């Protein structure tokens, strides 16, 4: 697969020691069942990098993101965060990562507001009612905050999940096909969220089939092949 080169230096809010690659992937390989999805994948990502992950269905985009967030153990190679293997960082690594997968992770029985506040509280970030309402408002859910999520449409549920990005303070975002069932306005919103994140010195890795033209940070493209 395409090994990514070092991106040129960009202006940062974080200190100098943060300028090196904070996420490094070396010789990563993934095997699902008896099929090898990819092998020898190398990536070095400095702060402020956006990676657009593309590839045909079944090429291992989701598997790669799940390896990067630590849900899946790689068949070979390793992922390092700030110089330490994420396997040895264990739970400490999760304070730096937000992963949004195919399934939105929104409870039908809870309202949008409760979903947002509880998922953040479980991540160790207690969000005040006002902040949560503001985040949901920005995601276009004003007036529907206290409706149980089962009454929301698929796209609105997706927006509830994305509202987490507004209140979490993580540096690495791993977004897996989060643009499905979103309308144009919401896609533009996601783009601006990622731009703000990159300007703060964050990293975003997004698996998507839609082209995202960002005006901030450094964009890399990683294409997986079958």
């Amino acid at each position, binding site marked *: 697969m395409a090994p990514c080169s070092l991106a040129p230096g960009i202006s940062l809010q974080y200190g100098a020691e943060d300028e090196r690659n904070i996420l490094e992937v070396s010789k990563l390989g993934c095997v699902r069942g008896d099929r090898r999805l990819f092998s020898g994948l190398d990536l070095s990502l400095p702060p402020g990098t956006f990676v657009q992950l593309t590839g045909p269905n079944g090429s291992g985009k989701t598997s790669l993101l799940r390896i990067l*967030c*630590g*849900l*899946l*153990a790689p068949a070979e190679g390793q992922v390092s965060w700030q110089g330490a293997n994420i396997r040895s960082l264990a*739970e*400490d690594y*999760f*304070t730096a*990562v937000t*992963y949004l*997968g*195919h*399934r*939105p*992770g*929104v*409870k*039908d*029985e*809870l309202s949008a507001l*409760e979903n947002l506040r*509880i*998922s953040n*509280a*479980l*991540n*160790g970030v207690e969000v005040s009612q006002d902040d949560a309402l503001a985040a949901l408002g920005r995601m276009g859910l004003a007036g529907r905050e206290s409706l*149980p999520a089962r009454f929301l449409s698929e796209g609105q549920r997706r927006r509830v999940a994305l509202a987490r990005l507004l209140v979490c303070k993580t540096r690495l975002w791993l977004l897996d096909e989060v643009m499905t069932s979103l309308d144009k306005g919401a896609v533009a919103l996601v783009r601006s969220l990622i731009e703000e994140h990159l300007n703060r010195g964050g990293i975003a890795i997004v698996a998507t089939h839609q082209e995202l033209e960002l005006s901030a940070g450094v964009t890399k493209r990683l294409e997986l092949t079958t």
Partner: protein
Amino acid sequence: MLRWIVWRDLMLAWRRRSDMLSTVFFFVIVVSLFPLGIGPETQLLRSIAPGVVWVAALLASMLSLGRLFANDYQDGTLEQLLLTPQPLYLVVFGKVLAHWIIAELPLVLIAPLVGVQFDLGRETLSVLFVSLLVGTPVLSLIGSVGAALTLGLRGGGVLISILILPLYIPALIFGAGAVEASILGVSSAPHLYLLGAFAIVSLLFAPWAASAALRISLE
């Protein structure tokens, strides 16, 4: 963090009260069928009471165990729980604690009431209550391992019974044994102590084993 997990699960259970009530009704009906089927033979009823109530409690907990992780697994919140910055052991422990409060505690509370149908004395009923109070955490704890192992499998409900019911046997023997001892008029303390020891051992190992099983199920 633990309280958030427990609170979340309790709130979810409250919003889906019917699930919780069905477990309790199942327990009450199964226990009540025996006196109705056997008739007013108080001697026989008294001697089968400990086994019947305990077996009904085991079966009732089977009903609710399937939901312990499955609902969270389906909507993707289980993945998010695995990615929270705290030991998975604690997350599982919180969920098991909530499961015990939702699914087992109502059985413990109602057992002395349904036990009256078996012509048990007041002292025996209180031993029944204590034995269930000490023993039902074992059911939730060991059951969580089975629920984690069978996550996402088709026909997981049957599989979980086959996996877990044999592991419940010590709890059944000592739990029912305590009540039986009380009926015979001897001390039920040894049975309760052993049941308590079994509960402590499962408290140490079950959340750990269930976390490992969850990681495997979600890979």
